[in-house]
């Protein structure tokens, strides 16, 4: 099955087809999660007709996997009308929700829609921890009640457990809860910056020792820790690097915001066009920004193409790199993950350390004359 999905993805890439899209229906939400990167005010969401028209265009463009997310998708009164339209167009639909608003009648309707899956955020098996993160009293109780309704109806439910310092110790409990209610379990150890570039929420990220624990927990890896944490295999060969792509963003995947803005990925806020002004397929095929993203291969990454992790243990996200200032640069969060995974520093980490030591030298000399400061910096370089 994974082989067939990969085959499909390769074919879509050759044909220039956006095989998968995440469409956020709203940024409004009934929870106020401490790690959320969104601005929850409505700045002009697409209306029902606009979204249906967009779905028609996406189906015609060949989009197959459609993820509807938010915000909380069920905050939209037309939510079911939208999903029903998407299913009539034969999309493979996945929902991301907190499920707080799913009761018996909503569960019945979701069951009838023959969805691929419903991914539900669960931060802890303990209400005091989960509710403190969502800032909605009673949210865990309501979410788990909804999960049970969906699972009873045969809907595939996946727990999404974002890890933060506040809830790190609870992930085995969430995993056990998922098993008890019949849901799948996924874990995400990455907190991403706010969409406006504010990086303050990154302080919520788990500590290095905690990440090490996750990367050595066979129950969540899907492979052996020895294999997962094996030393990096060295940089890719030059001829391979010319063909290797950073990820699917802009190649077979893109993201559309509730306002109609199209981006290469939900985690890659490079504006490429707006479906209120242009047709979806025109943006996908002809936007200069999308074309630029598509043109980048690993060999175009000045630091990462030389990195020993480049051959396999790197999970570099070009969107996170973009948010750090350069879509061709390293992503410090992913460098950290590669380091924690293997114990070997990445090229990005080595360069940053070198830059810090240079900056340190400049600072030490700050009491000296400007000339001597410039001279010592030159010696360093």
């Amino acid at each position, binding site marked *: 099955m994974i082989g067939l999905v990969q085959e499909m993805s390769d074919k879509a890439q050759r044909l220039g087809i956006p095989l998968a899209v995440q469409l956020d229906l709203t940024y409004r939400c009934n929870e106020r999660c401490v790690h959320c990167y969104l601005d929850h005010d409505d700045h002009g969401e697409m209306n029902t007709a606009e979204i249906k028209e967009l779905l028609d265009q996406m189906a015609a463009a*060949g989009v197959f996997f459609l993820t509807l997310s938010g915000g909380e998708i069920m905050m939209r009164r037309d939510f079911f009308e939208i999903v029903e339209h998407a299913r009539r167009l*034969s999309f493979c639909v996945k929902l991301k929700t907190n499920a707080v608003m799913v009761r018996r009648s909503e569960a019945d309707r979701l069951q009838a829609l*023959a969805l691929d899956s419903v991914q539900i955020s669960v931060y802890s098996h303990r209400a005091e921890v989960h509710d403190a993160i969502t800032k909605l009293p009673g949210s865990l109780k309501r979410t788990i009640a909804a999960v049970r309704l969906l699972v009873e109806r045969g809907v595939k439910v996946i727990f999404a457990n974002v890890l933060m310092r506040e809830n790190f110790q609870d992930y085995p409990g969430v995993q056990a809860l998922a098993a008890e209610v019949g849901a799948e379990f996924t874990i995400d150890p990455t907190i991403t910056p706010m969409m406006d570039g504010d990086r303050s929420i990154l302080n919520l990220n788990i500590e290095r020792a905690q990440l090490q624990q996750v990367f050595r927990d066979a129950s969540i890896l899907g492979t052996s820790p020895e294999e997962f944490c094996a030393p990096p295999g060295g940089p890719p060969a030059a001829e391979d690097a010319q063909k290797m792509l950073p990820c699917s963003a802009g190649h077979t995947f893109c993201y559309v915001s509730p306002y109609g803005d199209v981006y290469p990925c939900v985690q890659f806020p490079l504006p490429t066009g707006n479906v209120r002004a242009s047709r979806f397929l025109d943006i996908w095929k002809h936007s200069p920004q999308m074309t630029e993203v598509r043109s980048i291969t690993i060999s175009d990454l000045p630091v990462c193409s030389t990195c020993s992790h480049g051959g396999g243990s790197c999970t570099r996200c070009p969107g996170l790199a973009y948010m750090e200032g350069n879509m061709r640069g390293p992503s410090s969060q992913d460098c950290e993950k590669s380091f924690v995974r293997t114990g070997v520093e990445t090229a990005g980490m080595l360069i940053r350390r070198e830059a810090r030591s240079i900056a340190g030298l400049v600072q030490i000399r700050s009491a000296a004359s400007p000339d001597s400061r410039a001279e010592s910096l030159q010696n360093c370089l």
Partner: protein
Amino acid sequence: MSPVYIARTSEVAARLLGSEMMIMSARDSTLFSLNETATAIWQAANGVTPLSEIVERSLCAQFDVDPAAALRDAEELVEGLAKHGILKLSDQPIVETK
């Protein structure tokens, strides 16, 4: 022999990728890829056209195939797809009840 009618179920997601149809079963998340001829049968599966007529119109007219062999292959294909729950088979026309 009574005619066979075939209809696509609503329990699947489907999209044409190049000349092949990708189908995902919501029942068990199984993914299928239909080749060009199977895709032609899938697209023509409207519940009211007999399979023999679909083979004649959609396959024999488009592809250089022997009609009897094509019908045998098509019957085998639709039975396989029906077992996976992505196609409905009946000896009567299948009318959408929704």
